């Protein structure tokens, strides 16, 4: 019987170097830029194409989940800290901006950055003792954090208790709301991609690969892990702050598991470790979940099944698959 195997050959541009591209022609230039431009332009014109208020709101939610998914992907696949506590970041950011806005009367465009910075610091300080933990244990602890905070707020009846805090200012204009989140996502996406290839990103990856060797090289792994958590939690808090101003309300639902689970699902489906993948995953998952809203909790069943399917059969995700198809020729050859 004739046996065949698949041969993969890299396309020209990718082969030449790992990080430096020698662009020889317009064709090669477009080969590299078109996918990136497609994403940027697509995201930017999306609010103009979608006219209904409802779906524009969905776009904002997509962006907030995308922020969380990016922060998850960055922490998990570039620093080796698997955090299931997306809801924790969202909650801290959300409650902080609510306090800044209602108690101190700061406008959204001031309270959001403040909540991001202070939220990131608070989250990092609270997670600091857990940083030596690895793998499953870090995941479990971070999964517990949002639950603890929700229960404490409920039990002590502080910060509005179960009712939450109401009367938060919305954005002055819905276009500001739309483009603020979209531009933030795009900036952070490309910023992170740059970061992970810079010096700092290299050290983060080293911490992920072998933290003992990093210690033996005279660098404190706790400092670098804390820095990574600071970056990731800042992104989560930013998302939380935005969502509070969009809904004009903050409450215990900010600590809900949705914010921890959906970004992870998006990352798995979109392609872990690519940074673009998670954003793509959110762009797919969140609208589907909205479309299925009339089915009630059945939508959660649906996306759980999709998630399991992806983990079991296509664990690389859409983006890795897509990149492979884009960068490589494939052909069958005889063995």
């Amino acid at each position: 019987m004739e046996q065949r195997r698949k041969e993969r050959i890299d396309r020209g541009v990718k082969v030449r170097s790992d990080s430096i591209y020698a662009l020889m022609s317009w064709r090669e230039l477009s080969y590299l830029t078109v996918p990136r431009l497609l994403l940027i332009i697509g995201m930017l014109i999306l609010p103009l194409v979608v006219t209904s208020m409802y779906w524009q709101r969905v776009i904002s939610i997509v962006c907030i989940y995308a922020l969380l998914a990016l922060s998850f992907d960055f922490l998990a696949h570039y620093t080796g800290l698997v955090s299931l506590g997306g809801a924790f970041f969202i909650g801290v950011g959300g409650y902080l901006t609510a306090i800044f806005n209602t108690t101190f009367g700061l406008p959204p465009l001031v309270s959001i950055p403040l909540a991001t910075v202070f939220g990131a610091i608070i989250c990092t300080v609270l997670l600091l003792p857990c940083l030596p933990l690895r793998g499953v244990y870090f995941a479990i602890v971070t999964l517990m954090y949002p639950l603890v905070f929700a229960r404490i707020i409920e039990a002590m009846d502080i910060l509005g208790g179960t009712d939450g805090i109401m009367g938060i200012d919305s954005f002055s204009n819905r276009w500001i709301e739309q483009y603020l989140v979209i531009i933030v996502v795009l900036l952070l996406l490309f910023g992170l991609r740059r970061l992970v290839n810079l010096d700092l990103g290299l050290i983060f990856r080293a911490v992920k690969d072998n933290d003992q060797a990093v210690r033996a090289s005279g660098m404190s792994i706790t400092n670098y892990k804390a820095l990574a958590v600071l970056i990731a939690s800042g992104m989560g808090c930013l998302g939380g702050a935005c969502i509070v101003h969009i809904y004009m309300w903050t409450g215990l639902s900010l600590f809900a598991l949705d914010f921890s689970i959906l970004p992870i699902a998006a990352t798995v489906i979109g392609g872990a470790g690519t940074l673009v993948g998670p954003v793509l995953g959110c762009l797919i998952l969140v609208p589907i979940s909205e479309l299925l809203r009339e089915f009630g909790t059945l939508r959660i069943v649906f996306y759980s099944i999709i998630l399991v399917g992806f983990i079991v059969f296509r664990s690389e995700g859409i983006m890795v698959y897509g990149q492979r198809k884009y960068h490589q020729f494939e052909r069958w050859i005889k063995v």
Partner: protein
Amino acid sequence: MEILIYGTINSVALVLMSLGFALVYGISRVPNFAHGALFVITAFITWSLLNTLGLNYFLSIVLAIIAIGVLGALIYQFVLIRVRGMAISEIIASYAIGLAILEGLRWGGFKGHSYRLPVFIEGSIIVGDVPVDYHRILTVVIGAALVAFIWLFTHYTRLGLALRGIAQDERASMMLGIDSDRMALVAMAGGAMLAGLAGILLLPLGNIVVESGYNVLTMAIAVCIIGGLGSWMGAVLAAFIIGFAQILSVVYLGAHYQMVVALLAIIFTLILRPSGLFGRQKELEERV
């Protein structure tokens, strides 16, 4: 006195909730995040067999537990086996399965006050000056019997010893001809059955609600982490510590603090003593 009695009952309930989780993790190193869902679905299956098909209570319990064992085995065979060794995929996959089961039940209309399982024996007895119903006493007795049974099973039967072998050193056991995947399958089925049994024992005390699935999962994780994963005695002791801490917090602080105590206990244990109270050095290296 009240604290002592209810603390004991609560602790045994925690032991029952966490046994299945501890068994599966101890043997196959898979954190089974679908544990809570298995706990709840067994109660609903029993309820359906009892009320819809009109079967005998005892028969429906046996059937439900067998069904849940098969379900656990299927979950392992078709999903978890493919992601074994990848800790995060294990968590996500099993959690997604649990989520699908629980939310599927909710969608299927299993909510509201009509879902109750009958208690095994009606009535109550005054112990000291506290009324305790027979069912709770029965739960404590069955719980104790179950722990004893598992201990005997894992120490004196071929299958039990094989399971412990896999738990301690997977490679060495495989070289001795123990099929690791089959043992994990057995463990998963057993763990699911333990979860189901716990559900049937504990849920007659209140309504069957979907939410309890999430709480059971949290409590199971709490008990196992604090006791030190893979340590049986540790899990039992941890269940008693948390059980009494919870009752004390309810008495002195208010009902809301019950969960806070458990969650804070997890966090502090992991931070201060990552191997758990009774874990060994080997596990410490895995965690830190």
